[in-house]
């Protein structure tokens, strides 16, 4: 492939991924409202369009037309930068996650990932930790004590969960011996899913992912009853929508990471042996990825509407005294597996 072709294909993939991402984010909001309603024996939004499918567009239109209020005590540049940073981080992380095998398009061999980076997992870790800056900036620059508390909580939470997340990923990396997401997916062929090989690591990673995305058992930065919305108390209009979208985009990225690192990525177990044509193979693989992703997302919503919020000291206890030792235990377990079975 010449440079021009590489650029063209990258742009096309970028366009597709960003569009799909934006649509998924808005529909995830709708899905969340429906799932929460079902869990509470209600119906949820079902008025705009057929069964409420146009509701996300109505929501976005409403937020666009709202007045953008900046508090007089706010630090204006940071107040504006924070939601942009949040969105940037949420969307760029997705670039290294493979959503299908190499596809044969117009005679070219195209990998179905925006950027096939050989240290992709490192890139993901770096960017997701950058996400906490957006929240801390938002909390600090708002000039409100509630927002500040939310921002500080987010930073403290991130530090305590980043560690167990890093160690859980360490277990995956020991097995795959590569930081390339593609290689990690390839290493989980058949039923050798990391979730099955190292269940403790899977649990610690999922818990850390919930904490990283500020989802409900750990949504202390925006705890409504104590912090009146936390870091986004002073935000309105599209800036608020930025945080809102970023939260859901983060969920999608976290779900994609769980699927890639632990649930075999885009691979349908033993699909190669079915003898499908190449096109069909690619389509089934991409669909497998989508289905896994949707199931993990549903799990996110399901947990949100089932579990109460942790108290702050309980959260710290869980992070440092339970998750951290467990993730170390997982590393030892993986080391033993490698020693004994030469995986």
């Amino acid at each position, binding site marked *: 492939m010449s440079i021009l072709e590489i650029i063209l294909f990258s742009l096309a993939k970028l366009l597709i991924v960003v569009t799909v991402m934006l649509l998924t984010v808005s529909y995830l909001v709708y899905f969340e409202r429906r*799932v929460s309603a*079902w*869990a*509470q*024996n*209600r*119906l949820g939004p*079902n008025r705009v369009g057929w069964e409420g499918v146009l509701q996300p567009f109505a929501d976005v239109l409403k937020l666009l037309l709202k007045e953008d209020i900046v508090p007089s005590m706010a630090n204006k540049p940071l107040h504006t930068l924070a939601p942009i940073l949040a969105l940037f981080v949420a969307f760029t992380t997705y670039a290294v996650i493979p959503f299908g095998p190499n596809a044969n398009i117009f005679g070219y061999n195209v990998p179905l990932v925006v950027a096939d980076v050989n240290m992709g997992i490192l890139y993901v870790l770096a960017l997701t930790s950058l996400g906490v800056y957006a929240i801390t900036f938002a909390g600090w620059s708002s000039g409100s004590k509630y927002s500040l508390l939310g921002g500080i909580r987010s930073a403290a939470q991130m530090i305590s969960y980043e560690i167990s997340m890093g160690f859980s990923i360490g277990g995956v990396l020991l097995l795959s011996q590569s930081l390339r997401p593609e290689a990690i997916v390839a290493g989980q062929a058949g039923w050798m899913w990391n979730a099955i090989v190292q269940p403790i690591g899977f*649990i610690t990673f999922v818990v850390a992912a919930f904490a990283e995305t500020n989802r409900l058992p750990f949504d202390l930065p925006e705890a409504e009853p104590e912090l009146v919305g936390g870091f986004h108390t002073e935000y309105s209009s599209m800036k608020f929508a930025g945080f809102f979208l970023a939260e859901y985009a983060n969920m999608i990225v976290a779900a994609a990471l769980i699927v890639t690192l632990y649930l075999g990525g885009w691979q349908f177990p033993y699909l190669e042996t079915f003898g499908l044509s190449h096109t069909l193979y690619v389509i089934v693989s991409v669909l497998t990825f989508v289905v896994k992703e949707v199931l993990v997302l549903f799990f996110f919503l*399901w*947990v949100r*509407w*089932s*579990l109460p919020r942790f108290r702050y000291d309980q959260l710290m206890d869980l992070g440092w005294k339970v998750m951290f030792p467990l993730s170390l235990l997982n590393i030892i377990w993986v080391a033993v597996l490698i020693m004994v079975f030469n995986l």
Partner: protein
Amino acid sequence: MAVKRRLKDLTFWEKIYIPEIVKGLKLTLENMFKPKFTLKYPEEKFIPGGSYRGRPVLAQEENGEERCVACGLCSRVCPALAIEVQAAETEREKERYPEKFEINMIRCIFCGFCEEVCPEEAIVMSKDYELAFTNREDAIYGKDKLLVPVSQLQDRIEFLRSYK
């Protein structure tokens, strides 16, 4: 020193959270497939029972006469001063009838005192709850809107009798 104990100590399985979390998740999942309570309002309407206090109406006998004898007790008891009655005389068996009977539906608070105080079972709370007006004049209901045949009010009248 007294050792502070909880009323119920957690067992090992409760302490490690996971089985309890799974229990909670199971409960919400079960609820997702249960029938919903929501009424799709403009299409499906709520049908209240006899105990429901909707718009107050005047009972009208089968022969078209109203039961009201214009004693004015309802207007006297009304805490919101919503009822206005003007009596007049006739040659019929019941010698008095309301010449003018108006309920201001903006003022009405649906307390049901008028119905409670009425000696003739003439003013009754109906099941009508869809009351929206575009101007104040429309909200003053005269006899034309208030008179409703008794047959439509049986539910409420039976409920009232069971409690008297």
